[in-house]
């Protein structure tokens, strides 16, 4: 028998936003916040690591946001950077405000598939750490294998979830931070995430990569060079996701509808598509 949340989720129209109330706001960086929301009445199903919600800022619009963590009582954590009108509206929400959510949608990081018999390299760039957060939680909790995390950011003040980085380290993961520029007080690396991946000379058998596509392509090249098979590398790709159920086609990438077939996709399935140039 499913949980009550599972039961409810089967009754919810995937195109109908469900109201959630903001119960906490965590300022992560100067322009990034984590909004903690709780169901007003009906809970959506819990998101698996890497899945996303379509989040409505009422009166403004709807955007896809990866779930950075789920918590007790159906609470959902959404880490958002103010970039456009909708994300700015979400970043500007106050405790007590209500937003709408649909989902969870899309594919998940295959934590169970790789976690038990693969040493895993996780590479995150910028806000790309948010969709990987629950996957790393699961890997450091359940995986008997080696977990290495490389996190890149523009500068130290832009590094997300410093408490999590410490907690993952305490639970056995090896965490390497790197930034584009810093001052001398910065105790870790300065350079790109790819440089850090290359530096580690890893012998990992699987990898999860999420961040800007330039960063992902470059990091994946380094991972392939180190012998990680293309069918054991997963990346998270985001396009113009609207319906969330593969009907509207706006998120099409080749034969893939990324709201349904992604955002998490295996590298060998999309490698050629990554060579297509943007407008």
């Amino acid at each position: 028998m499913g949980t009550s949340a599972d039961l409810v989720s089967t009754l919810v129209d995937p195109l109908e936003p469900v109201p959630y109330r903001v119960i906490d706001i965590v300022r992560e960086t100067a322009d990034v916040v984590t909004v903690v929301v709780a169901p007003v009445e009906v809970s959506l199903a819990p998101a698996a690591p890497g899945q996303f919600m379509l989040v409505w800022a009422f009166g403004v619009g709807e955007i896809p946001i990866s779930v950075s963590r789920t918590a007790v009582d159906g609470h959902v954590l959404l880490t958002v950077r103010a970039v456009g009108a909708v994300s700015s509206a979400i970043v500007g929400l106050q405790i007590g405000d209500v937003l709408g959510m649909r989902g969870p949608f899309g594919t998940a990081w295959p934590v169970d598939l790789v976690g038990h018999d693969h040493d895993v390299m996780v590479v995150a760039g910028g806000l790309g750490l948010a969709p990987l957060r629950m996957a790393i939680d699961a890997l450091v909790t359940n995986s008997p294998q080696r977990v290495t995390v490389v996190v890149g950011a523009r500068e130290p003040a832009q590094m997300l979830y410093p408490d999590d980085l410490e907690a993952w380290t305490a639970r056995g993961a090896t965490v390497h931070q790197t930034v584009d520029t810093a001052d001398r007080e910065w105790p870790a690396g300065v350079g790109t995430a790819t440089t850090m991946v290359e530096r580690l000379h890893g012998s990992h058998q699987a990898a999860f990569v999420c961040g800007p596509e330039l960063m992902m392509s470059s990091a994946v090249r380094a991972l392939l060079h180190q012998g990680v098979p293309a069918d054991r590398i997963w990346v998270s790709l985001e396009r113009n996701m609207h319906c969330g159920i593969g009907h509207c086609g706006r998120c099409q990438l080749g034969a893939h509808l990324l709201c349904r077939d992604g955002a998490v996709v295996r590298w060998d399935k999309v490698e050629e598509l990554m060579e297509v140039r943007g407008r």
Partner: protein
Amino acid sequence: MTDLNALLAHHDFFAGLDAALIDKVADLATVAEFPAGTWIARDGTEAGTFHAVVDGRAGIELASADRPPLLVATVHPGEIVGWSWYVEPHRWHFDVVALDVLRTIAIDGGLLRAACVEDHELGYHVGRRLTRVVAARLEATRHQLVDVYGHVR
């Protein structure tokens, strides 16, 4: 094999070189140690020494009179500090500072250049390895230049 030869042979930059070539480099090298905060190189000065990092981090810094110094890259064990010793006019184009207690294999750049001219096999291997470093740092610099973590314009 001496300790220095072994250090060189196991350093990522020199790994795979024939023992005879390692011997030639070792003749021009010494182990150096720098306390944290020590300048390894200063912008505009002669680039006479080539450092292969063994322990600790070196920081490559950009500085000017109108802004505080900014670290743009760190150099870690298995990597090398700079190539100005190899390329004319053999002057450093950045400041380099020891961020931790730094242990390097310090190689006389002028003598190594001369050895590369005299022994083209050594010159080929050193040049090939340096090119690999330059290519990787160029790609990294391009990514930093476009600010991949920023908003897509």
